[in-house]
């Protein structure tokens, strides 16, 4: 992973001191609340329901053992002993005290972690394929490019006060595992006719108006990553709306202008940058990219014959191990190695939560079994990327002991959810309680295996941090006269077949939602063509109608009648 040099260390230290002084002035009454708000957001601090929430950037989702140990220490010292992994591969703390945050950030800086631009109207933490470097469908490892771009946008003075947040997502593989097109800009690193370049999509985003990014340029040359990013950010800074927070993302500029005018603006700016001194300064040399690549070189894998193991025999003896192998272990590009998913979706656990003890256990396991490295996934789980087959059984035993081996990756109980009303100041409705109720209805592994791959996603408000718009079953919490209600969308997907889900109809009450989801799943089991057809395929084949009819139970017919009457 990327190792800081003196420049990185000094810059982060000076930044932390800048925020320490801002916090001191605010607490001393020298800085008005509204002014401080803009500053604390750019250091990862939201005001939440109970306390400030601190979002810690995990650059492109990569964590090392030292960072995991530091996280254990930090959540014990400054919080209530746990942290929360988000869909943007970040970690959130729900209970830090503002006056202690500068010290907390100083501790994190020791292990190359920070909260720079974790919130606020700026360029946010960059997300990336969590299987970068180990996936067998990878064309190019996107992480060196992520880090080059991270350094370009970190504290960029021209783009520090944007109209609204701006998110980049990267992939270098055939399968998009990072929901890249839900970002303001998606960057696909690829090879064409022997040359490396980038396919750029712009204008994606979830929230109130969920949209997928549209292709801006099919091949930007490798040297021009920062130039093209600069052209997009400059166009956004100039033309993004600032009169209405709900219309301030770059996707609105694209929508209001239309794709041709929008593309012309970005391409014109890119051409001007490219022809100028600015372009000379932003142009990446092969040497720059090579140097960055060395930070992400492959670990010293053992020869295949030393790494391999017979897994059939232990699996036959232990059902739990067999289930875990089937659901939580995936192929690796190196013979004898596997990718291990660590589930943060155990029964009774809020999706994505991780305790201090688990952070410590993970540090230990990463060091022992995966060259000291761990990744956070888009689905709020974790990945140990480089595990030898011969270590799998020992690793499973230890993950089990830490409650990190629930064999449910990609299944019904692997629910994505934001923290919801229990923590978040923006939320309209609770999420954690609902996820637990859905969980209880499908707790048995047999039932989950029968159902197969399904993505249930849930957000506590329109902002969509739980990515409800791109769930196969998406659930959105809304407030109706002070009560919690839940809207359901169907057929969304964040991957290669990306789609925004379709809203089914009226919202369901808190008491109805878990049963409603269960009815949708049972509808699928009854209607699927065969066991191979997934929920999403089945939905796409049959459309909304049969699911809608069952979601509302007996009410559906009455509703259909009244709709017909209205028409």
């Amino acid at each position, binding site marked *: 992973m990327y190792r800081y040099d003196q420049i990185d260390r000094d810059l982060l230290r000076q930044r932390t001191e*800048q925020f320490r002084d801002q916090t001191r002035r605010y607490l001393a009454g020298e800085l008005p609340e509204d002014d401080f708000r803009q500053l604390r957001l750019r250091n990862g601090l939201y005001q939440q329901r109970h306390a400030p929430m601190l979002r810690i950037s995990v650059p492109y989702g990569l964590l090392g053992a030292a960072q995991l140990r530091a996280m254990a220490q930090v959540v014990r010292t400054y919080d209530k002993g746990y942290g929360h992994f988000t869909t943007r591969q970040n970690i959130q703390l729900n209970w830090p005290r503002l006056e202690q945050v500068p010290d907390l950030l100083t501790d994190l800086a020791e292990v190359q972690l920070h909260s720079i631009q974790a919130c606020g109207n700026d360029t946010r933490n960059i997300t990336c394929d969590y299987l970068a470097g180990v996936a067998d469908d990878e064309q190019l490892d996107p992480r060196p490019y992520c880090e080059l771009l991270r350094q370009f946008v*970190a504290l960029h*003075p021209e783009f520090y006060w944007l109209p609204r947040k701006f998110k980049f997502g990267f992939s270098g593989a055939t399968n998009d595992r990072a929901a890249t097109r839900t970002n303001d800009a998606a960057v696909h690193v690829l090879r064409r006719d022997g040359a490396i370049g980038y396919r750029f999509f712009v204008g994606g985003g979830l929230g109130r108006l969920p949209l997928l990014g549209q292709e801006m340029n099919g091949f930007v040359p490798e040297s021009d990553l920062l130039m093209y990013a600069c052209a997009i950010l400059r166009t956004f*800074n100039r033309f993004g709306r600032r009169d209405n927070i709900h219309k301030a993302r770059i996707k609105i500029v694209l929508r209001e202008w239309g794709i041709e005018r929008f593309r012309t603006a970005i391409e014109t700016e890119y051409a001007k940058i490219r022809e100028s001194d600015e372009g000379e300064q932003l142009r990446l040399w092969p040497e720059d990219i090579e140097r960055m690549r060395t930070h992400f070189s492959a670990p010293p894998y053992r020869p295949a014959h030393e790494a391999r193991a017979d897994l059939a025999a232990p699996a036959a003896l232990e059902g739990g191990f067999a289930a875990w192998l089937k659901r939580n272990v995936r192929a690796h590009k190196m013979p004898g190695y596997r990718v291990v998913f660590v589930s943060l979706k155990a029964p009774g656990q809020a999706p994505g939560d991780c305790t201090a003890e688990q952070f410590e256990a993970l540090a230990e396991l990463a060091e022992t079994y995966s060259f000291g490295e761990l990744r956070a996934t888009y689905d709020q789980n974790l990945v140990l990327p480089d595990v030898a087959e011969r270590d799998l059984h020992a690793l499973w035993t230890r993950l089990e002991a830490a409650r990190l081996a629930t064999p449910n990756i990609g299944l019904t109980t692997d629910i994505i959810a934001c923290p919801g009303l229990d923590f978040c100041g923006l939320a309209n409705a609770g999420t954690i309680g609902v996820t637990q109720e859905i969980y209880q209805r499908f707790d048995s592994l047999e039932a989950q295996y029968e159902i197969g791959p399904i993505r249930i996603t849930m957000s506590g408000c329109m902002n969509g941090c739980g990515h409800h718009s791109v769930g196969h079953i998406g659930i959105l919490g809304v407030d109706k006269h002070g009560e919690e209600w839940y809207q359901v969308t169907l057929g969304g997907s964040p991957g290669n077949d990306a789609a925004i889900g379709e809203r089914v109809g009226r919202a369901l009450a808190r008491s109805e939602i878990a049963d409603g989801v269960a009815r949708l799943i049972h509808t699928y089991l009854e209607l699927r063509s065969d066991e191979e057809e997934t929920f999403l395929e089945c939905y796409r084949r049959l459309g909304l109608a049969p699911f809608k009819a069952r979601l509302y139970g007996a009410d559906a017919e009455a509703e259909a009648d009244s709709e017909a009457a209205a028409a």
Partner: protein
Amino acid sequence: MSRILRHRAIVEDDWTLAVDTAAAPSACDRWIVPLARWRAERDTLRAGALGVLLPNTEDVEALYPQIAASPLIALHFPTFADGRALTQAVLLRNRLGYRGELRAVGDVVRDLVFWLGRCGFDAIVPRPDQDLAACREALDEIRLAYQPAADGHTAVWARRRTGAAAPPHSDAR
């Protein structure tokens, strides 16, 4: 006369911002007038020197041939969190080569000053309630930079190079 930051020093301001259209400059004064008035009256105003104040929505590239000779261009921050004038400043300095005084006016607070300095502003007029000495210190809050802007910092990726010559410019496009 109020005090401002210019070239990193606290100095008396020798310019007057004439937002009031009725005010009539005299021949020896140095006046800054809004773009609309500047367009209408620049040939008839009898000021000693005339600077122009641009709204942050103005396309500085299109306008530049008209204002290039102005000794001062003032850019406006309606709120400190509205960064449009930062792009205007970078374009004026880097792309258009403007070398006159580039002045930040409006809701200019201490915590914006660092970013102004990096984007090429050499004159900063803080909001009246701001502490000037603190503003001057803020210019150096962070003394390193990852990326080039308009203050002479070399890009960090270039600083890390070994000293080999630049590769030939690719003209693949």
